[in-house]
């Protein structure tokens, strides 16, 4: 068992790149998958993973370690980068185009291709629906539904009560069912 996130982040705050490397290797998978789930694009997920770890390093002194994990905060950074990409004039449309693009590699099995297209479309539909939610609902959706962070950790990270997180989660689920069902 290696050092905990909290221990490592204490060293990261002091500028220890080796400790950051350990955390990078430990959590890249979660961050990368979260990026995909929020965009429906593996290309975008890769950019988002890079961006999130860069932001994490630069903002290391203000990171929030929840319990003994830095993951909830990293997922919040990914969510904010997605919004920033969508908002920014500089990169406007890039994420959306990526969400809509077809797979870049096509193999010989038509059924498999169709299945992957369907899966990608479903992820994109959920991602787009989450992006349209009001801020409070969107944030708990990104953390708890997509990122699978538990409600207690999300509450601590967001600085609200666990009850608030659970209520917003209920409302988000209800809205998402309706929104995704209509797409």
């Amino acid at each position: 068992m290696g050092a905990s996130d909290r221990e490592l982040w204490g060293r990261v705050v002091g500028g220890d790149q080796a400790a950051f490397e350990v955390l990078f290797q430990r959590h890249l998978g979660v961050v990368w998958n979260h990026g995909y789930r929020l965009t429906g694009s593996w290309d975008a997920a890769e950019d988002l993973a890079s961006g999130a770890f860069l932001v994490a390093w630069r903002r290391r002194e203000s990171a929030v370690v929840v319990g003994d994990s830095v993951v909830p905060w990293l997922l919040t950074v990914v969510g904010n980068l997605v919004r920033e990409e969508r908002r920014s004039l500089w990169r406007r449309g890039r994420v959306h185009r990526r969400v809509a693009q077809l797979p870049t590699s096509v193999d010989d099995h038509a059924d498999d291709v169709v299945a992957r297209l369907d899966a990608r479309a479903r992820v994109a539909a959920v991602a787009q629906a989450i992006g349209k939610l009001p801020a409070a609902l969107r944030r708990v959706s990104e953390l708890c539904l997509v990122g699978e962070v538990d409600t207690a950790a999300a509450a601590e990270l967001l600085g609200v009560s666990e009850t608030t997180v659970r209520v917003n989660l209920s409302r988000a689920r209800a809205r998402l069912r309706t929104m995704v069902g209509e797409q």
Partner: protein
Amino acid sequence: MDDIEIPAAREVPDVVRARVHVQVFRQIQEPPKRRYALPVAAGVVAAALAVGLVAVVGSDSGTTPASGKRETAQPAAPSEADAANADLDRCWSGLRGTPFAGQLPPRERVVPVLRVSQLQVNVVAARVDGKPIFCETTPKGVRLSKLDAQPSMVTGTGTGTLLVSPNGTIAGVLDPTWADPYLSVTSRSKNTIREAVKHKDGLFIFRSALSTINSTITVQPTPDGLALPVPYPPDPGFSITSQARYPSPELTECARKATDSTTVVDSDSWDAAATVRAGGDRIILATNSGGVAACVEQQSYTDFYAMPEPERRPMLLGIIPSIGGKPLLTGVIPLGGRSAELILPGGGTIQANTARGTYAALLESNIDPRAMTLRVRDNSEKVIYEGPLT
């Protein structure tokens, strides 16, 4: 995630891991001047901004700092008993001047048992000489079950309701053999929530985020038990709620539609404020002396969001990013402001719809709010604020 499909996590391919590693660590090791020229740096500010907005929209404390960190130095919370007694005092004082005053039991004989506080609604279960009574307080009203009312019993059980309020409270007496009951609410829009019931000494309280108006309520004696229909109590109890000073049929209708799914607390107390519509969708901001709300009407869904009074003015309210396909900005302006305009990065302006200290503006395209300036004028056209939207 129920019926919303989230793909299973994949292992990161080695080639991806290597590429991301190079991207990250190469830039970490570059000098600061280059680093801060990168576009992702803007995300840092966005992070702080977005988390701060959550505090306004979703917090029940309203004190979350923009950093997202919870404040640790807070005054000691009053005990639950103190809080319950304060709520009971409010129920009694609120009803004192009403025609019901003579029917209230003496306050000093009311003994609190259980208190549940959620999103500005507090509910206290109490007993008066052994008889159950329930008090609900909201920012703009109070409601009290009748002491002599008979619970509406769940058939064949010792569980029954004494208070089901439009503010989302379901409360009553609990069968003494039920240790871990679960309650479900299915709204008229067919959305369902299911959560454990809070209970103590034979009394229970459930707070529903979904509307309890004409909804279907069921209870399970155990988490896996049979769901039993829960009847509504025949008597709504005593209540008083501050009414809107400037009732608006549009807002009333929007709030009514929202109750197909969502609980709208103090629904009659809101004055309509800034309003915009686009592509068949509409947002109506609303205010009362307790805070700010927004009723969002979309073709597929109508929802109502209430929040405590913002801690500063002006302040951007992150309610919903767009309506009718158009980016939307909403916020509050300094008191005394009568008009608000947004100054775009290129110098153009957008006149926001402004009313009762709120504004709403539709944009033609996504523009970073940080690149815009808000200008607010008073009745005499004097500029009383010009600066960031914050």
